[in-house]
């Protein structure tokens, strides 16, 4: 079973080398694809030096766009399972096993990591208490999504799932889009607890509004 780990990276020269090394240590057989999203630093060179397969956007198009490019390449290379992983060292490589396990056991078509299922995540309080519940409510009302974590970038899916879910939201709204499409296509969905180590705040309240705005315009322009 071929596993491709897709990392969307934009100006990640500080962390990308270590992330790639960690993955290689745990999954020597996995193909590591770094979707370099128009970085202006040495992300591309460093990722290549550490043995990742790098596909580069000439200009920055957003995390959603980079992940879709990574998915397309993974499918082209015959991946059976595609894992989305962050390049900023906030996820634990050893947890990839737990995320792909339901797919290997044929219990799920897509598995979402969740920071709200018991494992310790040093999530900032404002995010945990205000932003995430609001995002969860938004997902539930507008897309019928009943998942505990509305914005987690750690997920795994089968090749068939990646062929069905074409990410159209270039920026941060892709998280909700993937969940919404997984529900829409009635895929077998599973959530597993994951750990996140925060180096920075991440998505702010204004970022949340930006996601909603992106969604509305995307919907209207289709």
């Amino acid at each position: 079973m071929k596993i491709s780990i897709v990392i969307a990276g934009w100006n990640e020269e500080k962390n990308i080398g270590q992330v790639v090394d960690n993955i290689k240590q745990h999954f020597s057989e996995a193909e590591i694809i770094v979707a370099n999203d128009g970085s202006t630093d040495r992300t591309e060179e460093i990722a290549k030096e550490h043995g990742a397969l790098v596909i580069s956007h000439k200009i920055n198009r957003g995390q959603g766009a980079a992940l879709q490019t990574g998915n397309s390449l993974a499918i082209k290379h015959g991946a059976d399972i595609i894992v989305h992983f962050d390049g900023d060292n906030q996820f634990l490589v050893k947890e990839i096993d737990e995320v792909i396990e339901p797919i290997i056991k044929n219990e799920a078509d897509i598995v979402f990591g969740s920071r709200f299922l018991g494992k310790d995540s040093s999530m900032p309080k404002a995010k945990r208490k205000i932003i995430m519940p609001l995002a969860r409510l938004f997902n539930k009302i507008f897309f019928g999504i009943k998942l505990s974590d509305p914005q987690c970038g750690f997920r795994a899916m089968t090749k068939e799932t990646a062929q069905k879910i074409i990410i159209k939201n270039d920026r941060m709204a892709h998280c909700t889009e993937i969940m919404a499409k997984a529900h829409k296509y009635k895929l077998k969905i599973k959530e597993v607890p994951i750990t996140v180590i925060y180096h920075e705040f991440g998505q702010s309240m204004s970022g949340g509004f930006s996601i909603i705005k992106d969604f509305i315009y995307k919907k209207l322009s289709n």
Partner: protein
Amino acid sequence: MPQQIIALALIIFFLIKLFRQRKKNIISINEFRFWLGFWSISAIAIVFIKELDKLLKALGFSASGINFLAYTSILILFYLVFRLRLKIVKIEKDITKIIRDEALNK
């Protein structure tokens, strides 16, 4: 009266610009038709502003003709900004497609 002359002069200026743009093929025929219609209606409304006042009064509106034109203009502007935003989203989508294809085919 002086306000009407100023407004009409401005419209004539925009119409001249519009015809020049069409002559140089900068804008499409549909866009040309849209703006020609827009400025023509604006000019007619300004020339017949008194009649517009009467019409609005007869229809039960308290606003004067000039206010009505201002409100309508704001509505049209909102609509055009919205259309422009949708167009930008479409262009963004196309750019992503080009960038992705280029990256995948390298």
